[in-house]
C-alpha cells in the first residue's frame, strides 16, 4: 500500500478496496473455532493491511522536524481524526495509550488527581474490569477511599445505590463499565451518567467491550477502550477525556498525546487500530444483528441441552457477541482443556483458571455459580456452523467430565 492509500484508509468511505470476503477462509468441521473475542478479536483485515503499510511509512517519531517525521505526524493526525469521528468526539480529546489497561489506569488515577480538591472517593461498580479495580486499590493504598456499588443476579447496576453513592460528600470520580466483559450485561450508562451529572461528579466509562460493537450513551467525561477487542492490533488503548473535564496526568510529565500518556507511540499499530475501528464501526449494526441471534441460540440451547447449567447475565440487555454459563460440578480448567482438545478456544471466570486461584469477582458479585464457567465471545469470522458445532459437542464434553468425576445424578 502506498502512503496516500494508507492515509485514505483513515478517511475514505468504508468498502471498495477494503472489501473482505469472509468465505475466503475455508472452514472445515475439524478446524479450530476461536470463541474468545472478548479477550482479543482476530486481527481485522483492514488492520492487517494498514499495519503492514504503516510499518513502511510510519516508523519515524512524529514529534521531529524532518520529512519522515512529518509523514508520521500526518498518519498520527489522521488516525486521531478518524478515531474521534467514529466516537463522535473532538480529535484533541483522544489519546492513544500502550494498552487498554494503561488507558483505564490513567482514566481512574487521572480523574481522581484532577478532582482531588473535591474529595478522594472513587465510586465504582462491583463488576469493573480488574484494571479499574487495581487502579482503585492503588488509590486506596495511598490514602484515598472507594465505594463499591453492587449489581443484581443478572449483573445489572443497582441504580438507587449508585445515585446515593455519587451524591455522597467527597466523591471525585465515578467509574462504570459500559457492559460486563464477563457476562455481557449492558449497564445503564445513560441513567448512571444522569445521576453523576446531578451530583457534579465526572463519569469514567470503560467501554472496552462496547466500542466498535454497540453505541455508548452520552454523558460520560472519560472513556477508555482497547484496540485488540475490536480487531485492531494488541498494544493500543484509547483514552478519551472530554473538554472541561478536570483530569490531571498521574504519570511523570511527557508532552506526547496531549500530556495524557507518556512514551513513544507504536504508530503503525495506532494507524491499524484507527483504520480497523472505522471499518468495524461501519459494520457494527449489521454484525450485532448477525451475532445477537447466535448468542440467543447459545443461551437457549445450552440451558436446554446441558443438564444443571446456569446461563448467566441479562437475557435481553446484553452485548451482541458474548455469552457466559456455568456447569454444576464441573472443574472449569478441565472444561477449558477438554474444549481446547476439540478445537474450541473459550475463556472462563472459574477460580482454577485464574492465576490468583480466586473466582471471578463479577460472578461473585452476581451471586452465580463460578465453577465450570465458560465465556464464549463471537467475532466477525464466527460462522453459524462454528456455533452449531460448539453446541453439538458441548453436552457430550460436559457429560464426559461429569462421568469421569463421578458426579452424575447428584
Amino acid at each position: 500500500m502506498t502512503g496516500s492509500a494508507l492515509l485514505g484508509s483513515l478517511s475514505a468511505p468504508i468498502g471498495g478496496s477494503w472489501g473482505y470476503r469472509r468465505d475466503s477462509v475455508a472452514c472445515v468441521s475439524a478446524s479450530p473455532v476461536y470463541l474468545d473475542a472478548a479477550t482479543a478479536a482476530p486481527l481485522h483485515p483492514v488492520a492487517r493491511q494498514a499495519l503492514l503499510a504503516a510499518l513502511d511509512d510510519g516508523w519515524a517519531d512524529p514529534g521531529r522536524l524532518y520529512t519522515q517525521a512529518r509523514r508520521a505526524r500526518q498518519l498520527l493526525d489522521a488516525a486521531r481524526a478518524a478515531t474521534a469521528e467514529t466516537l463522535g468526539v473532538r480529535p484533541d480529546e483522544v489519546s492513544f495509550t500502550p494498552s487498554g489497561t494503561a488507558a483505564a489506569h490513567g482514566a481512574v488515577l487521572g480523574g481522581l488527581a484532577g478532582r482531588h480538591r473535591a474529595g478522594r472517593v472513587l465510586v465504582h461498580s462491583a463488576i469493573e474490569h480488574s484494571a479499574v479495580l487495581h487502579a482503585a486499590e492503588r488509590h486506596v493504598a495511598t490514602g484515598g477511599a472507594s465505594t463499591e456499588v453492587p449489581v443484581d443476579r443478572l449483573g445489572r447496576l443497582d441504580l438507587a445505590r449508585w445515585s446515593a453513592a455519587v451524591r455522597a460528600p467527597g466523591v471525585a470520580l465515578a467509574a462504570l463499565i459500559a457492559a460486563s466483559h464477563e457476562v455481557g450485561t449492558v449497564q445503564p450508562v445513560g441513567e448512571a451518567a444522569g445521576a453523576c451529572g446531578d451530583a457534579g461528579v465526572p463519569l469514567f466509562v470503560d467501554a472496552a467491550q462496547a466500542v466498535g460493537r454497540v453505541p455508548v450513551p452520552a454523558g460520560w467525561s472519560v472513556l477508555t477502550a482497547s484496540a485488540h477487542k475490536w480487531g485492531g492490533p494488541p498494544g493500543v488503548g484509547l483514552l478519551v477525556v472530554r473538554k472541561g473535564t478536570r483530569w490531571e496526568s498521574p504519570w511523570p510529565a511527557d508532552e506526547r498525546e496531549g500530556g495524557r500518556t507518556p512514551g513513544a507511540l507504536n504508530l503503525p499499530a495506532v494507524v491499524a487500530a484507527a483504520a480497523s475501528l472505522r471499518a468495524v464501526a461501519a459494520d457494527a449494526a449489521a454484525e450485532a444483528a448477525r451475532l445477537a441471534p447466535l448468542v440467543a441460540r447459545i443461551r437457549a440451547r445450552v440451558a436446554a441441552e446441558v443438564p444443571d447449567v446456569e446461563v448467566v447475565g441479562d437475557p435481553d440487555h446484553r452485548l451482541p457477541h458474548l455469552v457466559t454459563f456455568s456447569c454444576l460440578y464441573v472443574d472449569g480448567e478441565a472444561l477449558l482443556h477438554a474444549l481446547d482438545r476439540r478445537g474450541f478456544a473459550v475463556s472462563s471466570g472459574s477460580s482454577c483458571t485464574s492465576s490468583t486461584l480466586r473466582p471471578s469477582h463479577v460472578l461473585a458479585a452476581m451471586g452465580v455459580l463460578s465453577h465450570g464457567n465458560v465465556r464464549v465471545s463471537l467475532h466477525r469470522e464466527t460462522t453459524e456452523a462454528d456455533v452449531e458445532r460448539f453446541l453439538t459437542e458441548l453436552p457430550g464434553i460436559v457429560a464426559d467430565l461429569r462421568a469421569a468425576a463421578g458426579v452424575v445424578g447428584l
Partner: protein
Amino acid sequence: MTAPAEVLDCRGQRCPLPVIAAARRLPELPVGTVIRVLADDPAAAVDIPAWCRMRGHEFVGTVTGPDGPAYDIRRQH
C-alpha cells in the same frame, strides 16, 4: 442458628469439590438437617450459596471460626 448435625471438612479441596461433597451428603440426611462445609477455597463462598439456590436448599450462612470459613446448609426437601 441451628447447630450443624455434621461437619464436612473440605479444607484443601478446590471448587467444585466442596460443592460435590455437600451434594453427596445432604440427601442422605433427614429434611431440615443442617450441615456445615469447611472450605478454604475462595470459590466456595460463591458456589455453595449458588448451589443451594439452584437445588432449592437453604443457605443458612457463613461462619468464620478457628478452622477458617465454613458454610451452613439446611436440607429443604
